[in-house]
């Protein structure tokens, strides 16, 4: 594969006009990652289109984190291809991914708790004014912009000077999403945004995912909750033990099937026959193998 210098490819990509709705912004072709002799991810195909929500589901250890770390520039892939706007890239720092318009909202490390909301909002991309020796933060403009942007996303905060650590988990996620949207992200990666949240707060976050999608962003929604995924998703990919188990559009898969795939899919069906031998286990609710009609992804070069 060709390794284009990440940053130059990224910068030219940003300057290009927005791609057509059918052209993927981010595409993974048979991508994988090995840590020494451990193959964490293998043969993953994923496309992200503008104004579409791509859900990546998987249980713990399925390779979700590795996948987003590759796309967000924290790690590099060791096999396959990673394309942004059709060009192969390899990001070495999160900064390069950001410059390419790929913003990541992490579940736990999205913000610096002791810093005020507005400083968090602009962290790493601060607005400044004045010539170099006295170049300083444009605090008034930053506060005003942060307030406007948050209100546009429907988040109303009284005091942007309060430490972001005093906000609730859902509010913090929303601030991080609003920040990504404001900084011209074309692709938004959300790492289990609803994992630590209550029912109502999860709903709020899902609302902002939809809002980001309506603004034309491609969203990668990482979760292990198929119910949340099905509420906003356009395309579903299920990861299992580092490989793609399922890749299906919304009309090809039902929530029930998605849940079954999450729970182990074909393995669960096999387990049903074994459980049927044991008295007292109700297997009526478990799916048969032939019930799983959604197309099961088959990696090109045969997964391990």
């Amino acid at each position, binding site marked *: 594969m060709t390794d284009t210098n990440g940053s130059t490819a990224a910068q030219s990509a940003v300057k290009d006009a927005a791609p057509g709705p059918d052209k993927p912004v981010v595409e993974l072709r048979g991508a994988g990652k090995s840590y020494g002799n451990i193959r964490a991810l293998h043969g993953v195909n994923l496309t992200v289109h503008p104004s579409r929500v791509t859900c990546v589901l998987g249980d713990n250890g399925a390779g979700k984190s590795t996948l987003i770390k590759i796309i967000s520039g924290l790690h590099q892939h060791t096999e396959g291809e990673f394309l942004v706007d059709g060009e192969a890239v390899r990001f070495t720092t999160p900064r390069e991914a950001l410059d390419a318009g790929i913003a990541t909202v992490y579940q736990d490390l*999205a913000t610096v708790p002791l810093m005020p909301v507005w400083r968090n909002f602009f962290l790493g991309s601060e607005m400044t004014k004045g010539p170099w020796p006295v170049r*300083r933060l444009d605090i008034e403009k930053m506060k005003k912009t942060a307030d406007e942007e948050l209100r546009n996303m429907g988040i109303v*905060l009284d005091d942007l000077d309060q430490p972001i650590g005093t906000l609730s988990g859902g509010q913090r996620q929303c601030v991080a999403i609003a920040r990504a949207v404001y900084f011209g992200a074309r692709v938004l990666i959300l790492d289990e945004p609803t994992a630590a949240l209550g029912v109502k707060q999860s709903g709020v976050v899902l609302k902002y995912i939809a809002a980001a999608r309506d603004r034309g962003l491609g969203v990668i929604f990482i979760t292990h909750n198929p119910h949340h995924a099905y509420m906003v998703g356009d395309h579903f990919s299920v990861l299992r033990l580092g490989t793609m188990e399922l890749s299906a559009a919304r009309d090809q898969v039902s929530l029930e099937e998605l849940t079954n795939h999450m729970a182990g899919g074909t393995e669960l069906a096999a387990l049903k026959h074994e459980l049927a031998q044991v008295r007292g286990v109700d297997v009526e609710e478990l799916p048969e193998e032939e019930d799983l009609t959604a197309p099961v992804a088959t990696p090109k070069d045969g997964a391990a």
Partner: protein
Amino acid sequence: MTQATAPAASSSPPAPPATQKDGRTAQRSLGRRLLARPEVGALIAAIGVYVFFFAAAPSFREAGSLATVLYQASVMGIMALPVALLMIGGEFDLSAGVAVTTSALTAAILSFQLTMNVWTGVFVALVVSLAVGAFNGWLLIKTGLPSFLVTLGSFLILQGSNLAVTKIFTGNVASDSIADMDGFDQAKSVFASEVSIGGVDFKVTIFYWLVFAGIATWLLLRTKFGNWIFAVGGNKDSARAVGVPVNLTKIALFMGVGAGAWFVGMHLLFSFNTVQSNEGVGNEFLYIIAAVIGGCLLTGGYGSAIGPVIGAFIFGMVNQGIVYANWNPDWFKAFLGVMLLLAALVNLWVRQQATRR
């Protein structure tokens, strides 16, 4: 960490539906918001200590005594500033105390041995000090070891080298006097002169100290770099993920400590013409104490540049106040320990009051 001034915070947001409010967060009272500032605990303590010695030691009240107290405070305070910034950035530098001596020795020995203008030595000392800082930062980032260990190592290296190298060149533990060398008087006027105000001589370091404190405050609260300092100390991984150059920030902070060590080293050299190579050991803790008394959080991400100024002022008052009160100066360290514990407790209490919802 409400760095913004009160007026900016209280002005209503000009966004479209400005009247819409969340409603759950009541505006905290002015007193609460003042208490939330990191240096308030130290300020209260400083006033307490001042009143105490003002009452206990009659000679403490004279203007000349104030000049001495401020001088004591400034020599330590100049170093406490970069140490505090480093601490806000989440790291320690245990080599800061002996780095001062290293810098002074470099300038003294180099100038004397090569019989050059002292400014050459001053310049080379700056380069060496910055290099020591950069080395500390680089090693920290490359190894991922805690800064406590890395700088403990460089502390021992510098302490040993100070003694050994000085003995190689001079045969004893002090550097040779550079008082009769070219450029000495000029350098002395820059680093170690006195300014007379109303008949009282104030050392020039007092003014440098206050100017540096102003610059540090501006840097911390009004620049990009200041934002990064809080971020790398508060949550390094988050900072990196949003594109803050974490490694660069940390190395720059260590180099800042190097620059401070250079300045204080030059002051000591041009005040006394010679340097004792075993000096400076233990001072690193005084810098850290000044920063902690000034409200900087030991774990990083919180603090101010004004805090360590007040912390150093308390240090100067206690140091001199004991002498003026005619007590045994041996009590100084004990007193300082009590101050540190009290300051830590006051800071804890203040922060709990301020962040209580």
